[in-house]
C-alpha cells in the first residue's frame, strides 16, 4: 500500500507533498499525527484521505502531545513493533501555537520523529506571519507599508530550541533535496528518543513563486546559506551541506513576491543587508562554504 497518495488537494508545485512522501520513504509504515494546517487540509477531508498510514489530526497546537499519546499507548499495549510515530506540523503549529506541547514531548523523551514543515508563514489561512517567517517577508499580518518593510524579527531558532531540549537527532532539510530528506528521516529513526527535522518547503501562493520555480527557489535558500542544511546527533553537529560559490541573498529574494518590495522600499536595503548578515553568520557558524 502507498503511504501517501495522489489526489490530495495541494496547490500545483507545493513543496509539502514532496516533503511528506520523502519522509515516509525513509520511515516506512508509521503512525502520523498532524497539526491543523495546509497538509491537514489537503490530505484529510472526510472520505478523501490521502494517507496510507494510520493518521490522526486533533487540533492546531497539540500534534506533539497527540503523538506522545500514540507512543504511550503502543508501549502500554505492547504494539511498539507496529511502526514509529511521526508528527507533521507546520511552522506556526511548531514554533508558535504548539511549542508548549513540543517542549513537553522533547522533555519527556518520547520516541517520536517530529517533522516541522516550514513554509515560513500560516499559509493555509493566507500567508499570515509565524515565528518562522523570515525578516522582510511581506505577509498579510506583517505587510510592507510606507514605514514598515514587512516582518521585522528574525526566524525563531527552532534548531537551537530542539538542541537545548537534548533532542537526540536534530536536522534541517529542504524540498530541494528530497533524497536528503529520506536519508535524514531514516537516520533519525536509528535514534531512540525525540527527534526534530525541519524541512524548508516552498509555498507557491504565499511566497509568490511560479510553480515551476518552486524547486529552484528552494535550492537558492540553501545556496545562499539562508537555509543551512545541518544535522546534529546527540547534540553534536555531524554533517552540513557545503555550498560551492555561495550566492548573494538577492538572488533568492528577487524570485519571490513576498520580498519584492525590498528592492524599492526605503528600508529595503537595510533588510537585505540584515538577511545577508544572517546568511554570512550561518555560513560561518556551520562552516558551509566549500
Amino acid at each position, binding site marked *: 500500500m502507498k503511504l501517501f*497518495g495522489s489526489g490530495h488537494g495541494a496547490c500545483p508545485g*507545493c513543496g509539502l507533498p514532496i516533503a511528506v512522501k520523502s519522509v515516509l520513504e525513509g520511515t516506512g509504515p508509521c503512525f502520523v499525527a498532524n497539526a491543523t494546517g495546509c497538509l491537514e487540509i489537503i490530505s484529510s477531508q472526510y472520505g478523501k484521505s490521502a494517507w496510507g498510514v494510520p493518521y490522526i489530526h486533533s487540533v492546531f497546537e497539540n500534534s506533539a502531545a497527540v503523538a506522545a499519546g500514540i507512543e504511550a499507548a503502543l508501549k502500554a499495549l505492547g504494539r511498539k513493533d507496529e511502526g514509529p510515530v511521526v508528527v507533521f506540523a507546520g511552522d506556526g503549529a511548531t514554533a508558535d501555537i504548539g511549542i508548549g506541547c513540543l517542549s513537553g514531548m522533547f522533555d519527556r523523551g518520547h520516541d517520536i520523529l517530529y517533522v516541522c514543515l516550514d513554509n515560513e508563514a500560516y499559509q493555509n489561512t493566507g500567508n499570515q506571519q509565524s515565528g518562522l517567517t523570515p525578516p522582510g517577508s511581506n505577509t498579510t499580518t506583517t505587510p510592507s507599508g510606507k514605514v514598515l518593510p514587512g516582518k521585522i524579527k528574525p526566524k525563531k531558532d527552532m534548531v537551537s530550541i530542539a538542541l537545548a531540549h537534548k533532542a537526540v537527532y536534530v536536522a534541517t532539510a529542504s524540498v530541494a533535496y528530497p533524497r536528503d530528506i529520506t536519508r535524514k528521516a531514516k537516520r533519525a529513526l536509528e535514534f531512540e528518543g525525540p527527534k526534530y527535522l525541519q524541512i524548508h518547503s516552498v509555498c507557491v501562493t504565499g511566497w509568490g513563486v511560479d510553480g515551476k520555480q518552486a524547486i529552484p527557489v528552494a535550492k537558492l535558500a540553501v545556496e545562499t546559506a539562508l537555509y543551512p542544511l545541518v544535522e546534529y546527533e546527540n547534540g553534536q553537529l555531524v554533517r552540513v551541506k557545503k555550498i560551492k560559490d555561495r550566492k548573494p541573498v538577492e538572488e533568492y529574494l528577487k524570485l519571490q513576491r513576498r520580498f519584492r518590495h525590498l528592492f524599492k522600499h526605503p528600508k529595503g536595503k537595510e533588510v537585505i543587508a540584515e538577511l545577508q548578515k544572517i546568511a554570512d553568520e550561518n555560513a560561518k557558524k556551520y562552516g558551509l562554504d566549500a
Partner: protein
Amino acid sequence: MKITLGAVSRPLESLKIKTGDWGTEYPVIIEENCKGCGDCVVYCPDLCIELVEVGKDEKGKVRKVAKVNYDYCKGCGTCSVVCKHEAIKMEIKELYRG
C-alpha cells in the same frame, strides 16, 4: 447516508479525486532523452510519475523511463525543471491553446 464513527476515513480515498484536470499544462516525456534517473519521480508533488520498463538498452540492461499518470498530474512543471536530461517538456493543454 452512511457516516463513520467520529469521521474516521478509509485510507487513500483521495485516489478517487482525479486532479489531472487542474492545470493548463501537462508534461510530455521525451523517451529517447530519459535516462530513468528517477529525479522527476522523487520531486513530483502529486506522486504521479513512475519509472516503467521499455525493453533493454544496447548492453542488454533493462531500460526504464518516466511515465506520467495524467489522472493526477496538476501540470506544475516541477518535473520538467528538475530533469537534467531535457527529457520532459511542458505543453499547453488543447483546451487552453490560443
